[in-house]
């Protein structure tokens, strides 16, 4: 075997390991992209809740409402609930990705452990997290996993 052949073999081996490394990096990049998308959706849906609440504030602050204002408030309340549900859907999707191992699990837990706990334990959101009838199974599964509750 000539030195050139030997060198070529070494380079080929290096290229092989580099390509394995590239696959590893691509997986990490894909995971980071998913995490960014999930985070964006959660943030956007939270902003929507905030936007609706801003529209409601002038009406809420009035002590008396005429019929038109009552109707407006009822409509805004529906939009408010819808915005909350959209936000919970975003959390549900994020937790489903976590359970499917599509994200970096350690980083995801560090980022969302507090948020998920607060959402599930919040009094006003309690109706969404009934253990039997809740549509947000992934959120509840992640919550119980992290909080070490037996379920």
């Amino acid at each position, binding site marked *: 075997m000539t*030195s050139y052949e030997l060198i070529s073999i*070494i380079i080929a081996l290096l290229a092989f390991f580099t390509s394995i490394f590239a696959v590893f990096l691509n997986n990490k990049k894909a995971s980071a992209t998913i995490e960014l998308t999930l985070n964006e959706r959660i943030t956007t849906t939270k902003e929507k809740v905030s936007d609706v609440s801003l529209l409601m504030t002038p009406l809420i602050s009035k002590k008396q409402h005429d019929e038109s204002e009552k109707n407006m408030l009822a409509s805004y309340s529906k939009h408010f609930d819808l915005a909350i549900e959209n936000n919970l859907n975003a959390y549900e999707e994020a937790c489903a990705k976590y359970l499917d191992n599509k994200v970096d699990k350690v980083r995801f837990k560090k980022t969302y452990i*507090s*948020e998920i706990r607060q959402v599930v334990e919040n009094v006003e959101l309690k109706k969404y997290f009934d253990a039997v009838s809740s549509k947000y199974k992934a959120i509840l599964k992640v919550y119980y996993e992290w909080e070490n509750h037996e379920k």
Partner: protein
Amino acid sequence: MEKLNELGKRYFLRIKDSIYPEAEIDEILNEIDNLTYSENNKPISDSDKEKLVSVIIESLKGDLTRKKIRPLLEHREIEKAYSNDNYLDLIEYIKNQTKGK
């Protein structure tokens, strides 16, 4: 002849800065195969060729580790979890204010 270590580092920089690293590696391999000692103008030995390639490989591995692995590991460390405090306060406030209205 320039010290093998320095020459290997120069080859590494050429590969690192190249737009087409694979083509650059081919070219460098040809150059290494045709290198001669400056003292006597004789072709360099096989062991010196292997040493040169080792320097290049080690430099490339070190560069990959420094540039690609470390930032990924650092990115994993998150000092503080996100909080929903204000968001949930807002929901509670609106819900309380609209009860019975």
